[in-house]
């Protein structure tokens, strides 16, 4: 307790002067921040509370007095397969996306290629093509290539959600890798590709992690491609599952909310495990 007050003291003292006034104001700010948090996160709290109560979600208590996991059992029964599908598709999309983005970002960052700038511009612009437009045309192509209702088709489409972002983010990082590092590897007899794999990729670990995390989240959250590129239930990610769940007449809101909780888990885990990468990704990918 005392150590943390000492740590914050210089900051508050600088702006408000010496004395206890600064510390008191800091405490009020903390209270205000927690209130804001409570208001903005209430819908997610409500989702959790509804899922934890057994009365099929009709009369929900503000605080669950006798929480139970029945709804989660029902959710896993009906949506368990969809959750696994989402996981597989999202991981596949990350693999495709990084395999394409990492070499491209390196090339754009380190080789002064003719037209390289134009490519970076184009990459930025592709981020803005509405997904429904892509789906509209992609469906025709997929129908001809027999990729409708296939895992491969959905993985390839979902990779597009993270690719422009990943290229821009990785390139911004790889620009700062000194050329000498790669040249030293080349002198040691490695070719350009092995030098890339053995030297550049390990150095870019954090940037790769950020790009991968975001691509995973984009693919996991994808609804549009799941909805449009599938006409049967063969490939049904959880976003599509929960949509069909509420589309029919809902009798068990507890199970719906439990599904919602389960599909929000990756977001929560990433927030805890990779907080600094997330903040870096949002600012790095959009502003730079």
């Amino acid at each position, binding site marked *: 307790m005392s150590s943390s007050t000492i740590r914050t003291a210089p900051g508050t003292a600088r702006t408000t002067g010496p004395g206890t006034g600064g510390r008191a*104001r800091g405490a009020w700010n903390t209270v205000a921040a927690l209130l804001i*948090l409570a208001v903005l*996160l209430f819908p997610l709290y409500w989702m959790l509370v509804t899922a934890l109560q057994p009365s099929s979600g009709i009369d929900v208590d503000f605080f669950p007095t006798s929480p139970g996991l029945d709804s989660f059992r029902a959710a896993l029964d009906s949506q368990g397969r969809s959750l696994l599908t989402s996981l597989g598709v999202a991981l596949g999309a990350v693999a495709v996306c990084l*395999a394409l983005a990492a070499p491209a970002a390196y090339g754009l960052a380190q080789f002064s290629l003719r037209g390289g700038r134009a490519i970076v511009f184009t990459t930025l612009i592709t981020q803005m093509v509405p997904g429904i437009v892509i789906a*509209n045309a992609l469906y025709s192509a997929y129908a001809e290539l027999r990729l409708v209702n296939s895992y491969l088709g959905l993985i390839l489409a979902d990779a597009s959600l993270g*690719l422009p972002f990943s290229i821009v983010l990785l390139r911004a990082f790889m620009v700062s890798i000194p050329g000498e590092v790669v040249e030293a590897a080349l002198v040691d007899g490695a070719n*350009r590709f092995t030098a890339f794999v053995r030297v550049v990729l390990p150095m870019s670990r954090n940037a790769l992690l950020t790009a991968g995390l975001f691509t995973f989240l984009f693919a996991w959250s994808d609804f549009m491609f799941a909805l449009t590129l599938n006409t049967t239930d063969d490939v049904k990610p959880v976003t599509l599952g929960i949509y069909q769940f509420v589309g029919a007449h809902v009798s068990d809101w507890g199970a719906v909310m439990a599904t*919602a909780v389960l599909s929000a888990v990756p*977001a929560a885990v990433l*927030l805890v495990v990779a907080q600094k990468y997330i903040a870096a990704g949002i600012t790095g990918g959009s502003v730079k």
Partner: protein
Amino acid sequence: MSTVTAPSVSAPAAGASSADARGGTGRRRTALLRWLFIAPALLYMAAFFGYPLVRNVLMSFQHYTPTTYFTGEAPFNGLDNWRAVFSDPLFTDALWHTALFTVGSLLGQFTLGLALAVFFSRRFRLSRFVRAVLLLPWLVPMVVAAVVWRRILDQEHGVLNAALQALGLTDGGVPWLSSPDVALLAAVLVNIWIGIPFNMVILYGGLQEIPRDLYEAAALDGAGPWRAFRSITLPMLRPVITVVLVLGFMSTVKILDLILALTSGGPADATQTLGTVTYQMSFLRLDFGQGAVVGNVLILISAVFAVLYLRANRADFGTGK
């Protein structure tokens, strides 16, 4: 082999003519090798961004019917799709709804995001923690968020109406999602909730870049907090504000997930937007030609803002590497 590694154009001058020729092919090989790094991503982007853009333009001049995907026949029909869409009241309504939805969402997200960014720039305990956890609504899949809100906004069983009635603010329950008069407003409110964290994070990042001494100098000159905000914060933050608004616009104007899961475009088409109309025409009515027309309108609108975005980013490209 030195030509392979040297990235510079200037080859060693001391070479004989044969060495020059070898250097030439070597350089060509190097250039080829370098393009190999980029080629897979380029091919992919051509297939998943370029092709759909071109194909969508073609499709908008073709007659698609529910049997097209069995027969493979989609004859060209000139401007028929365009005429049909532009005289369809659903399209004009959707255009208007999209405008209202986008402006309303951006106003709310930006104002609240900026207020939170300024607030969290103060130093206090738990600031970092709260800022991080506030990101959660933005990270949860949008469809999932919409489903949760669908329950909260339910007229009879929803917790929002229960709270409003307990506070005595309304008599009967507000028909948030079942009345054409308020459904669009409800969708805007939900989208504001989703977008606040994104705005907050980017604007917060921008605020940290503003040098502290500017504020100290202003305070010495007797400027109050409001004056400092108007004369220092807003002008210094302008590039970041442009970026956040343009990015917000791009992701809001094409909205689909949220609306489908919240209202399915209803009640009485009151929440149909360009995104949902494209979906409805193509994938429900199976008239991909008309869907393509609406999609093209969406692209045109986005293109205008893409130009704005690149302009805002140009400074970054000019000075950055």
